[in-house]
């Protein structure tokens, strides 16, 4: 039995996992990262558009601060987010950008003086301030009041991953590349690591750790059409679910991005619209202002995606041999802008569509894009039910996105959560009561169980075809658990997915080659993915309201009376065909921003009985305080939830700090007083 010991086992080498490991290592704990692929090939790489942080350097971002970012994020989430976590996030995001700047990310910078931008289809000249020259620039993104999205041309995720990956190498953090966690090792409500498969040799081994973190990214491949990489199969979600102890939160909250290229689903960034690109129909008509007069193309993603599908359903889609689509027109941005600021978009259009976006329009249609749901955690990143299990990034339901995440808030979340949760992981490892004492028999039991499952697939004589089952699952999810959802479709989906799950228990292989055996990989992953697909579909069926990206045609209103709560799914027994669903209410009486209208999309919701009273309370508190920090603290204190070193305020051009004392520690000077 091969056992590897470490302090912190990080499952996933994307931005979240890398940053979390660095935090733990800096605090003196050994961290070891597992990754299906070399970490710099993780899907964080594909983030093109940028990272939200309220620096407010560009003129169109002037006046931005944590408060504005907070409100945008909560509205975007359709009040599904945990507002305390959102506060932790918005305060840390500017620090994260600045840390990344110090680590080498070549952020695009502000140039003083006049420049021409496209706003609402018009060329407009704006003037950047002298004092902003050389600071990190921001661009416009959907669902935000201010230009807040920091970017590196259109390869932001690439540049971030490069820098954070380099820092992990500098910190000598080992990455076991081409390995896959197949199961969590746990006993008596405590997680002890994972059973891991080597994807070169096919061998299993056990990794035992004080703290285990799931940072495995999204689960887009549950769907046929997705912007996600082929490795985004949600295996991290699934192994947490399979413990029967840890819960997955809000798995029915799935985001569809308006502009996947048609039909391949490869993403072209929201920056296209942020920078002034327009959506047009079969008649060349710009239709978004008809639906969303205020935010137009830049309403939040769930709204834009629905409007596009609605417009296609009205017969206004562009017909092609692969089906119908919409046009994305960025020609008005001009060649220089496209070749410099949207270069990745240019390359994708060129290589995959044979289209020159400088001259031609791009065929697009909404595609699955982001998994809001994930491993439910406390604000510290730890599972409330499985001690020693942490999660961060897209795999987690920390829950700052609720039912819809804003563009640019996700890569920001990965590094911010890595910074915060990494500190709490280190705190956890610091405490001697968390030292690992697990009988080897337990470890052996898990290892043997997983080996037996693989052996059954290879030698069990099953006859079902994994690839076919998976393809059917993806089809069902895309057709019936997609952008528009109906009770009847969802029932059918749940029903058929259950049958597929049962069938997947008799998958057989055609080949028995030693080594990684790609057919075996598809087989065991498909079994896990079906459980996740069921969690999404069943959660969607049960939630009889519309909120954020979850849109029920038969229940089009947001219903705060019954549904202002988070879905928690657990999978109790291996033989079950459905998860157990539980709900965690959100407390309106503690919200800084009580539920209301988002400012875009349908103005149609049923108020929670506590909303009016809380709103009155909030209004009264706001009257009383001039200072925005005091006001915030009176509304919803949260600083105590942040690690001490991340509690400081953020300096801005318009909120300058006094000059630093030569030997002083400015951080402590501006730290929050303890509550």
């Amino acid at each position, binding site marked *: 039995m091969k056992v590897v010991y470490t302090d912190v086992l990080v499952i996933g080498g994307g931005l979240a996992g890398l940053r979390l490991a660095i935090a733990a290592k800096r605090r003196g704990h050994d961290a070891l990262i597992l990754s299906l*692929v*070399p970490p710099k*090939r*993780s*899907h964080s*790489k594909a983030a093109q558009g940028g990272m939200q942080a309220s*620096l407010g350097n560009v003129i169109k971002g002037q006046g931005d601060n944590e408060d504005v970012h907070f409100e945008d994020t909560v509205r975007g989430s359709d009040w599904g987010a945990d507002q305390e976590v959102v506060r932790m996030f918005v305060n840390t995001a500017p620090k994260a950008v*600045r840390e990344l*700047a*110090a*680590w*080498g990310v*070549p*952020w*695009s*910078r*502000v140039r003083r003086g006049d420049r021409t931008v496209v706003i609402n289809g018009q060329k407009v000249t704006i003037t950047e301030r002298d004092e902003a020259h*050389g*600071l990190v*620039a921001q661009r416009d993104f959907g669902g935000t009041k201010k230009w807040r999205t920091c970017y*590196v*041309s259109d*390869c932001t995720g*690439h540049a971030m991953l490069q*820098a954070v990956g*380099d820092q992990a*190498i*500098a910190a000598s953090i080992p*990455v076991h*590349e*081409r390995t896959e966690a197949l199961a969590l090792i746990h006993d008596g409500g405590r997680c002890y690591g994972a059973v891991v498969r080597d994807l*070169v*040799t096919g061998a299993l081994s056990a990794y035992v750790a004080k703290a285990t973190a799931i940072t495995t990214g999204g689960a887009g491949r549950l769907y046929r059409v997705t912007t996600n*990489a*082929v490795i985004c199969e949600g295996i991290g979600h699934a192994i947490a679910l399979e413990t029967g102890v840890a819960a997955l939160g809000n798995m029915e909250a799935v985001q569809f991005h308006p502009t996947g290229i048609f039909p*391949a689903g*490869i*993403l072209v960034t929201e920056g296209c619209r942020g920078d002034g690109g327009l959506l047009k129909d079969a008649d060349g008509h710009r239709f978004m202002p008809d639906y969303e007069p205020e935010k137009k193309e830049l309403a939040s993603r769930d709204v834009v995606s629905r409007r596009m599908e609605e417009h296609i359903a009205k017969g206004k889609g562009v017909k092609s041999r*692969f089906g119908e689509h919409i046009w994305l027109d960025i020609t008005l941005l001009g060649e220089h802008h496209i070749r*410099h600021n949207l270069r990745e978009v240019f*390359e*994708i259009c060129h*290589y*995959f*569509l044979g289209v020159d976006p400088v001259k031609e329009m791009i065929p697009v249609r909404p595609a699955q894009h982001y998994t809001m749901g994930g491993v439910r955690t406390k604000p510290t990143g730890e599972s409330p039910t499985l001690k020693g299990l942490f999660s961060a990034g897209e795999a987690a339901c920390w829950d700052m996105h609720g039912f819809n995440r804003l563009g640019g808030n996700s890569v920001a979340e990965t590094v911010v959560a890595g910074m915060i949760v990494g500190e709490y992981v280190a705190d956890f490892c610091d405490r001697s009561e968390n030292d690992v004492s697990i009988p080897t028999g337990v470890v052996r039991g898990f290892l043997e169980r997983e080996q037996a499952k693989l052996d059954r697939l290879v030698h069990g004589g099953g006859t079902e075809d994994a*690839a076919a089952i998976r393809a059917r699952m993806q089809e069902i999810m895309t057709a019936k658990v997609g952008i528009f959802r109906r009770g009847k479709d969802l029932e059918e989906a749940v029903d058929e997915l259950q049958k597929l799950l049962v069938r997947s228990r008799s998958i057989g*292989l055609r*080949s028995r080659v*030693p*080594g*990684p055996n*790609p*057919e075996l990989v*598809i087989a065991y992953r498909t079994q896990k993915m079906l459980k996740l697909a069921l969690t999404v579909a069943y959660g969607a069926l049960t939630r009889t309201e519309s909120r954020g990206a979850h849109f029920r045609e038969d229940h089009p209103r947001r219903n705060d009376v019954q549904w202002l709560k988070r879905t928690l799914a657990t999978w109790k027994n291996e033989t079950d065909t459905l998860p157990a669903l539980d709900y965690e209410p959100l407390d309106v009486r503690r919200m800084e921003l009580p539920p209301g209208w988002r400012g875009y999309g349908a103005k149609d919701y049923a108020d929670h009985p506590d909303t009016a009273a809380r709103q009155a309370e909030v209004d009264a508190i706001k009257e009383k305080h001039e200072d925005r920090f005091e006001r915030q603290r009176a509304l919803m204190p949260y600083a105590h939830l942040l690690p001490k070193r991340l509690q400081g*305020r953020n*300096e*801005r*051009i318009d909120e300058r700090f006094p000059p630093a004392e030569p030997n002083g520690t*400015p*951080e402590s000077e501006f730290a929050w007083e303890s509550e």
Partner: protein
Amino acid sequence: MTTTTIVKAPSTTPAPSATAARSGGVATGTKIRVHALRYNPQEPGSVPRMQTYELEQSEGMTLFIALNEIRETQDPTLQFDFVCRAGICGSCAMMVNGRPTLACRTLTRDVGPDITLAPLPVFELIGDLSVNTGKWMRGTSERLQAWLHGDAKARDINRLEERMEPELAEQLNELDRCVECGCCVASCGTARMRPDFVGAVGMAKIARFRLDPRDKRTDDDYYELVGTDDGVFGCMSLLACHDVCPKDLPLQTQIAFLRRKMAGKGWA
């Protein structure tokens, strides 16, 4: 339906066939043949061989689509690496008709109807078309200390970030676009002969940090790292690397520049 023939591995890889045919040589609906190098080091008795798969050219078919179709309908054992399938992550580099390139963004109509696929040379073979570029890249990064060496005194992340000229940020981004795909290394004569040669990718990384004012290392420090035969002095400047880089890194100018700088150091 499935024609799977075993042919002898060619002793030399054929020249790029139809790389120039941008607008497409192979018509939709016609047959294409993928000749793939097969070898599974994990399987006792496995020997390298070529295997041919025939399939139908479909509209917009890439090698990503073609290889997955082969795996799903003809041969579940075929190994290859795709992650982003969008030309972004650098996972899928392989020899396509003798030329290293990103398979996911290669349209079969441009390189067919006969397409020969082989794993990248130089790198450790995992199986079939899959090689361990990750291990090579990490090793090279460690040897070259290819990370930003900033101020020892950490910056206060609560305060305004350090300023940088917008043009410089753009230049840095230009050199930062490397996706560690390994194409430059696979095309490089020196890398094939010298196992520790840092390749164009290594030199480009050093050039990138050298250009970055946030990195506090001096030319003497860089000389220590690349002023050797495994670095700039091993490079023959034939620039095969420059021609194959899928991200169009300015390898030619960077290598020449670095050589000049380091040669100057050597004489000093």
